[in-house]
């Protein structure tokens, strides 16, 4: 316990450094901005801003990128409440009750309860990340290559089962990502693999190019197809930001339960904030004595999902920081960001770079505090930003992305690759394939291959090693059971229902 406090204290010293506070502020501001703007996701933004973080010190860079992620969870709720368009996928469910509250003239309480709930969730999740960090890191040290490989399989399966859409197609996407990650030089022999004699491919495809293509460009192309949206911004003035005492009493339980659900879902590989918000809302509705109030402006319907998505956004850092395995697409980008700065994500981060680990955790708490303080007064500014029409927004995003990709390696070829993946991403959407598992597979690919090769070498080519080593066996059988459960017709229907709702 005293260790934990000492570590947290060190973390706050790192995070309290004026420069790091500035980066944190910058991150949460940018995050709120992209959260507010519909059609600009946090994945694309983080990919876009990666090159900008090159010149920064690693701690500052990661603090900023993390800030973008949880900042976006805050910003998304603003758009949901005021415009009834989710700014982020995680705030889809907040539209239901949040916008109804706004129509009843209670936009202020809705926004502030979302902020308060998120702040509470952020505090709890920060403590959780700090508390679970050490024991999980200890566990990770017991892992050999076989266990690592099995763990990654389990993580990918989790990601697949919890994502929406067909499980089979999601697994296929993971494998597509794995296959794409093998383009380039072989890890051990240096032989060029599947490079088609194109010299630029010898180093492989940059993950930022893929992310920008399938999330950034494809998303834009997709949005252009939709008819011009009518963003009907609420005309009524937002009067009285503070929730009443009754509001606070009503929502306190929902906030606590939302935080709990969000924290648990966030830790699961493949979980993440979207599922957390859905789960929390559904749970709250089931639990309520008056379920009919939901969808008509129930404050619990705002409090629970908003707390849950923020909690999940933060606890999803746990598998990344302790085991080095990204549980969702945003965390996959964080792996890339860490690699760029020469940090190998995994258990060694905590022992070798404690100031980075604890500094990041402490910055999450500071970032949440900043969000509460800056978010409510700035609502007016965010709303006026929503008046920028998409027809002017999207070309701006495109040129920004182009310059960003080019500046990573000063390579025009990278821009071409990203354009190609834009087309591929558009095609994937047309055929109901989810791009997120592809990116996860791509990031985990080299790690998986390396561990698979080592495990096979150590076991002298014996494939059964994955089932004879106990930890590995448990992990793999969990993965198999999960796949079977997800394939059962009854569960499949429930899954579809959850995502349709």
């Amino acid at each position: 316990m005293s260790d934990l406090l000492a570590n947290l204290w060190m973390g706050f010293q790192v995070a309290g450094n004026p420069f790091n506070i500035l980066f944190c502020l910058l991150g949460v501001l940018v995050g709120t901005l992209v959260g507010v703007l519909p059609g600009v996701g946090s994945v694309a933004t983080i990919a876009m801003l990666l090159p900008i973080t090159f010149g920064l010190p690693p701690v500052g860079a990661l603090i900023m990128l993390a800030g973008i992620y949880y900042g976006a969870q805050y910003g998304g709720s603003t758009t949901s409440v005021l415009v009834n368009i989710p700014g982020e996928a995680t705030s889809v469910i907040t539209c239901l009750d949040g916008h109804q509250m706004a129509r009843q003239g209670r936009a202020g309480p809705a926004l502030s309860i979302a902020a308060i709930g998120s702040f509470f969730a952020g505090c709890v999740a920060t403590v959780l990340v700090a508390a679970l960090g050490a024991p999980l890191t200890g566990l990770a040290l017991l892992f050999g290559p076989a266990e690592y490989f099995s763990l990654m399989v389990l993580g990918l399966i989790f990601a697949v089962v919890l994502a929406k859409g067909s499980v089979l197609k999601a697994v296929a996407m993971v494998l597509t990502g794995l296959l794409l990650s093998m383009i380039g030089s072989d890890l051990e022999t240096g032989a060029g693999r599947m490079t088609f004699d194109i010299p630029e491919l010898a180093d492989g495809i940059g993950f930022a190019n893929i992310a920008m293509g399938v999330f950034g460009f494809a998303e834009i192309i997709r949005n252009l197809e939709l008819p011009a949206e009518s963003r009907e911004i609420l005309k009524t003035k937002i009067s009285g930001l503070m929730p009443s005492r009754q509001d606070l009493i009503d929502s306190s339980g929902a906030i606590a339960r939302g935080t709990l659900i969000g924290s648990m879902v966030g830790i699961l590989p493949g979980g993440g904030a979207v599922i957390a918000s859905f789960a929390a809302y559904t749970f709250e509705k089931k639990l309520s004595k008056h379920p009919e109030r939901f969808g008509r402006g129930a404050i619990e319907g705002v409090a629970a999902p908003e707390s849950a998505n923020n909690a999940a956004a933060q606890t999803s850092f746990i598998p990344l920081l302790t085991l080095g395995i990204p549980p969702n697409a945003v965390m996959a980008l964080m792996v890339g960001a860490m690699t760029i700065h020469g940090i190998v994500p995994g258990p060694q981060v905590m022992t070798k770079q404690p100031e980075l680990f604890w500094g990041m955790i402490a910055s999450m708490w500071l970032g949440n505090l900043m969000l509460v303080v800056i978010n409510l007064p700035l609502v007016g500014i965010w709303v006026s930003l929503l008046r920028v029409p998409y027809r002017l927004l999207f070309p701006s995003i495109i040129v920004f992305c182009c310059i960003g990709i080019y500046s990573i390696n000063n390579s025009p070829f990278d821009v071409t690759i990203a354009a190609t993946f834009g087309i591929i991403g558009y095609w994937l959407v047309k055929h109901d394939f989810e791009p997120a598992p592809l990116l996860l597979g791509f990031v985990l690919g080299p790690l998986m291959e390396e561990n698979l090769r080592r495990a096979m070498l150590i076991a002298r080519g014996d494939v059964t090693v994955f089932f004879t080593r106990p930890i590995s066996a448990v992990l793999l059988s969990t993965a198999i059971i999960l796949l079977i459960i997800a394939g059962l017709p009854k569960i499949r229907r429930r899954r579809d229902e959850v995502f349709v709702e």
Partner: protein
Amino acid sequence: MSEGVSSSPRGTRPGFSINTHNLIGGLIVTVLAALLLAWAFYVPNAVIPRFMSAALVLVGVAATIGLLPVHAPRDFYGGIALVMLPTLALIASAELPGQRGFAFGPGTAPRLFSFVLAALGAAVAIGGVFAEGPPIEKYKIRGPALVIIGILAFANMIRPVGLVPATFLTFMISILGSTEMRWIESLLMAAAMTAFCVFLFVYLLNLPFQLWPRF
């Protein structure tokens, strides 16, 4: 094109239900698979991909002439593409050395994952033959094409003409992809965005960009 396959009810003359959608989709599959097949014969050591691409050609022909009823075209063509990709990967990695003793060679893992992906893709495609599914949404041409042309233009312009013209032109090309484009506000916004990017990337972040064409 968009009426899709669902318009041909199941069971009524399943053998010869030719409709435009399958015709186009089937032809695309056939042509791509034939190209793969030709390539697989050109590359030595590619016996398995030869069989795979030959099978794909047959499937494509069957879909084209309506022998193969496709009930969920999104899944069917998606699955077929996910068989083509590993076939291509197998051809490309045909000459890489494989396993030696216990040790993986550089070609082992790509082949391993290719086979698994091909199996999954085939499963998705087979599902698309038997299960009912929505037709493929119509592809739009204007928006995607102009956005992609804009990005490619940037890739080809940034070195020879520098950041300022490349940014401005990319903005203008891609904004043409929107049906609500207005000239004056677009030109103003393009200029503003160019100025902003130059300020951010060149002056604030000190990245080495060439601003104007070099003569």
